[in-house]
């Protein structure tokens, strides 16, 4: 059990006062952005990226880990109390959660959500600890053809399987890929799409893209809705969130089933936790219909427990895919990957060899973050809802200030600020017309990997395309991809038929 020794070493590194402080800051920030509708952990990490460049890498990554999971802890609070889920990942758990709140069981709903998020996250992270080294070993055998297959897998999965409309997903993917090819072509030194502008020689800075899409786009989008959004009402909660033994017995199987849905989805580039949370919700509803006393519609504790556990389990294994394969499976994971690069580390098979110490310390920090988040969320969940009273105007004004500062601080370039505004406007248009943002980020990150591994594979084999499907790993990846697309098509067909 080499993993346990490594993890113990990680805890030794992670349990320093300053590191704990950064985990706490991350957990507080993460919960806060989770609670506030429109803000998410991806945006929070993106805004902090340029500002933390000079921090100790472990401290910054531990803080980001707190934000990463904190977003998923916080997003259900507003959903349960006000029926305004902080993020799309909380829609599923808010359905029954808000009904519980209306029936006077808000504390129980909040507790079920927090404990569910904790269980899902812990189980998934334990799995990552045990399987990460063997995943990394497998990934060590990846050559150019395998990396190309992995990138194609990610592109197709994120664009078509997840978004409601494959065309919109592909639109986002195309925009991301186009942004990724700007700059000097590494193998040949050819200038591509730089328009002879010096700031573009190194390509469009990925930090500029993320901040612009996630923060600036959201600020403009919010401005476009001022005066048209209606106010949601906060349901007051009495008493401390707690669960009786009978309620725990009800919720426990749902927590575990939800975790079961979340775990596999973390390693599939499916854009995050929306799909597994709804699968968990659907399963609990189907099971509930068969029971003697159906609770769904009246505020079912299982309807909260399943999706919440699924959401954090997805986040947990997504971290595994990120660390071992260098594969970001959601927007937040994509931003985390950029954070690793900022500190000169490349997530992927070699990360455990080259930066083993810091990776194990980060994994230990994940466990610490989860405990901190449970403590932060259980007793004081209703307090967090008070955040919703912060005047929106100042909140978003502050976000635009941080965005502008971060983008300028990264390279002291006004061109970057203009790019930020342009891409921010694009982000606004995409939000307005329901084009998903995650495919853009995944494409920007994996685009160069896809291109260079394809060119390597072709150059090494004398332009023999058969090399792309010549190993069990590549064949396996493409097979899973075809199965996934078939499943998505079937699911969509069924959904359309159900509408008639």
């Amino acid at each position, binding site marked *: 059990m080499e993993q346990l020794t490594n993890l113990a070493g990680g805890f030794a590194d992670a349990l320093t006062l300053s590191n704990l402080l950064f985990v706490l800051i991350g957990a507080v920030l993460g919960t806060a952005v989770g609670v506030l509708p429109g803000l998410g952990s991806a945006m929070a990490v993106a805004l902090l990226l340029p500002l933390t460049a000079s921090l100790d890498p472990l401290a910054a990554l531990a803080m980001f880990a707190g934000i990463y999971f904190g977003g998923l802890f916080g997003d259900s609070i507003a959903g349960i109390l006000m029926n305004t889920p902080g993020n799309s990942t909380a829609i599923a758990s808010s*359905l029954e959660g808000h009904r519980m709140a209306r029936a006077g069981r808000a504390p129980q709903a909040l507790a079920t959500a927090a404990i569910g998020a904790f269980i899902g996250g812990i189980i998934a992270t334990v799995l990552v600890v045990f399987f990460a080294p063997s995943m990394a070993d497998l990934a060590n055998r990846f050559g150019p053809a395998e990396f190309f297959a992995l990138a194609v897998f990610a592109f197709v999965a994120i664009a078509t399987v997840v978004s409601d409309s494959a065309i919109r997903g592909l639109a986002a993917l195309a925009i991301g890929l186009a942004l990724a090819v700007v700059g000097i072509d590494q193998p040949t030194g050819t200038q591509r799409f730089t328009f002879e502008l010096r700031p573009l020689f190194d390509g469009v800075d990925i930090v500029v893209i993320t901040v612009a899409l996630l923060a600036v786009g959201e600020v403009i989008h919010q401005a476009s*809705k*001022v005066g048209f959004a209606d106010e949601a009402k906060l349901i007051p909660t009495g008493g401390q969130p707690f669960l009786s033994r009978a309620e725990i017995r009800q919720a426990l199987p749902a927590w575990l089933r939800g975790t079961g849905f979340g775990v596999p989805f973390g390693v599939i580039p499916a854009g995050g936790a929306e799909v597994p949370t709804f699968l968990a919700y659907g399963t609990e509803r189907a099971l509930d219909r068969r029971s003697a006393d159906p609770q769904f519609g009246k505020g079912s504790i299982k309807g909260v427990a399943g999706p919440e556990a699924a959401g954090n389990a997805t986040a947990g294994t997504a971290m595994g895919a990120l660390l071992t394969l260098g594969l970001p499976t959601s927007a937040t994971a994509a931003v985390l990957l950029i954070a690793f690069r900022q500190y000169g580390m490349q997530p992927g098979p070699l990360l455990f060899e080259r930066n083993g110490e810091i990776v194990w310390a980060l994994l230990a920090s994940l466990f610490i973050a989860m405990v901190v988040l449970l403590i932060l969320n259980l007793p004081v969940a209703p307090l967090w809802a008070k955040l919703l009273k912060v005047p929106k*105007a100042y909140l978003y*004004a502050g976000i635009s*200030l941080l965005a*502008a500062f971060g983008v300028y601080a990264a390279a002291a370039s006004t061109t970057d600020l203009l790019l930020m505004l342009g891409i921010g406007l694009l982000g606004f*248009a995409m939000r307005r017309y329901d084009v998903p943002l995650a495919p853009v980020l995944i494409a920007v990150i994996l685009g160069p990997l896809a291109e260079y591994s394809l*060119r390597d594979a072709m150059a090494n084999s004398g332009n023999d395309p058969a090399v792309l499907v010549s190993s069990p790993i590549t064949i396996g990846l493409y097979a899973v991809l075809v199965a996934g697309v078939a499943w998505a098509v079937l699911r969509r067909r069924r959904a359309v038929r159900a509408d008639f």
Partner: protein
Amino acid sequence: MSERRQLGALVIPVVLLAVGVTLVTGILTMDEAGEGGLFGPKAFPWVIAVLCLVVAVLMAVQVLRPSTTPPTADPGDEADEILDGEPEAPEGTNWRGVAIVVGGVLLFILLLEPVGWLISATLLFAVVAVGMGARNHVVSLVAGLGLAAAIQLLFGGLLGIHIPPGILG
């Protein structure tokens, strides 16, 4: 959803078209350095350009075709209920707010290097706040000045990030 808003959705295909055309002209005028082989620096951009153009056409068709198909698929009937409760697709758009926010960012970009961080950031905060519906300009300016100064002290002072001092330096 109003007729005009649906036509507005054409903005995405138009962007894709522009990106595709930019890629194609860029590829055609590219100075290829060295021997690229079959898969040189142009191959991948060609694939992306074609993808952009094809998706642009498909999306435009989808927008312009009278909508006979039901709107986006669902994760379940009840999910729609909760989404309807949210101001997800408001009937109106506050273009004034959008213009003020975008103008504020532009102003910031123009002012940052000549005038310095403190003044331009304070203005950015205040202008965005106005765009987002804040009424009290004095409060906006003071809050903006406070945040701008805090950022300067924290990140410029402690972490040593370069901040343009401008006329106050």
